[in-house]
């Protein structure tokens, strides 16, 4: 573990110095995970590529200021940059406007049900998330994966807290529908 940390730190140092070989190694190590992170927010493949490209450039530029806090911290830090870039992309494409449409009321839904993702391949879950409407998806991602509160989400996306909560609620509802559908298909086959 300590050896791993040393290696990670040595790689980090090389990337900081601008060594392209180290950058490639960094890319090879983290691009898979970062692509998965980006894909949660951005459904279009081309957009994913654009956002990732911007993210990597930011990462390589800002990596000098990154403070190493043990194994995994570099990965987490990089993922946060990707999330920021993805949010920027969503904001710029003005897709979030939909979320503040008035009259969005919470549908009546059994609140005690929670999505059950067991036995569903991660790949499939990711696809389900990608299929969610942009607002639901963004809030769901921030809430579940980035562990942001509705208050934080509200200020990040310039929406109200209640909108954030309702979007999450709807996202969960849609996901549960998808899960049921998936299970049903599985059974039918």
């Amino acid at each position: 573990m300590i050896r791993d940390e040393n290696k990670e730190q040595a790689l980090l140092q090389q990337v900081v110095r601008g060594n392209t070989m180290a950058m490639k190694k960094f890319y090879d190590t983290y691009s898979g995970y970062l692509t998965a992170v980006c894909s949660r927010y951005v459904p279009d493949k081309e957009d994913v590529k654009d956002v990732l490209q911007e993210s990597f450039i930011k990462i390589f530029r800002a990596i000098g200021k990154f403070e190493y806090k043990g194994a995994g911290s570099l990965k987490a830090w990089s993922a946060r940059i990707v999330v920021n870039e993805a949010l920027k992309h969503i904001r710029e494409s003005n897709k979030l406007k939909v979320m503040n449409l008035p009259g969005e009321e919470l549908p009546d839904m059994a609140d005690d049900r929670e999505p059950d993702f067991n036995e569903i391949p991660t790949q499939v879950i990711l696809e389900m998330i990608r299929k969610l409407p942009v607002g639901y998806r963004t809030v769901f991602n921030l809430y579940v994966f980035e562990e942001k509160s509705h208050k934080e989400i509200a200020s990040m996306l310039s929406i109200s807290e209640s909108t954030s909560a309702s979007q999450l609620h709807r996202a969960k509802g849609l996901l549960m529908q998808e899960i049921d559908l998936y299970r049903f298909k599985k059974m039918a086959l």
Partner: protein
Amino acid sequence: MKNQWQDNLRNRMEQHEEPAPEGLWESLEQAMSAGSSVGTKPAGQQIRLWDKRIGAVAAVGIVLFFIGLYTLKENQKNVQLVEQRQPALPAPVTHPDKGSLLADHTENGKPATEKRQRGAKTVETTKTTETTETTDVVEAAERQQEEALPPEGPENSPPSRVDRKYNPETNDGQSFRLPAKRRDSRPAKWQTDLYASNMPSGSAKHYDGYRNFTTFGLKSEEEVHVSATGSSLPGDFIVGKEYRHVYTDVRHFQPVTLGVSLKYNLNDSWSITSGLNYTVLSSQLSTGSYNHYYNSRQTLHYLGLPVTVNYTVWRSGQLSTYISGGGMVEKNLAGTLSTDYIVDNLIEERSQDRLSVKPLQWSVSSAAGIEYWLWKSIGLYAEPGVTYHFKNSSGVETIYREKPLNFNIRLGLRISFNE
């Protein structure tokens, strides 16, 4: 318990990877190299005097080549006249630098000539054994050259060494009693040859800062330290960093070429040569700082198709000199890049990648050659020449890119097919 599903899902996603979009790294590379136009010019790059000398010699060589072509065409008649009158062994006045080569052969030349006067009909079997032996010898010579030849001085490349190796064989050859056939000074229509060549000058350079085998990414310190966008990037801390001297050493070894070619004699003075050759380029790069660095070794294999036009300047008996000019296209067949990542003198990690250079490598060359017919259908030749390799769009650093203009010496064996 309410958030149990969230934690589970988060943990699963933490482990999940998606294939990165195709071409992302490539476009990233492009974007970054475009952005790093401020990139450091490699500091401390020493252009050795040698490079300049080669340039000068090459320029003179090319000019001489064309002047030579022109004037010699005018004098062609005289040359042929001289050719007929020349004794079997001309004094090597015109090529004082090749003295050793000529001297070597003077002793053996006579018996060979006598035999030639008796004439000889090519025996197929003899030819083939000679050919295989030759390949060995040429390879041996090439190995020797590789070891013995210092990067400086194409002059001391050892044509005589090859010759000496040949002498016993020549003598053996004389013991053949072959049916008589008169050999005129006219060369056979078809000739083939085997050769080895290298560029006597490798290249070694020292740079400050990091480098890579690809041309991308000479990033300056300033660039790397540019502050990120003002947004609240997580982990935005300024860390005091100690400065370490970072260096890069690039060494391109001498390219080594082996080849076979076929020469077609159009008439007494003009001929066309084409064939196939194989070249190995290898380079070594170490980059990093004193206690952790990358050590890479790059090897590229090329298959080349050369076409040259030769003009015989002067011929007498067994000896002839010629000049040639032509071009070559080379295709990269395979390549490897192995990188060791070394931390505190221990190999921390080793990676081996396949490497390929997609664009073709074009080059033009000009050479002067001296050819000596050991015996009826087998001749040796030495060709010092200059080659210019055009830049291609590939980002892979090779000696061709580093030093487009190169001196090379080719040594070979020529077999002529008499009708």
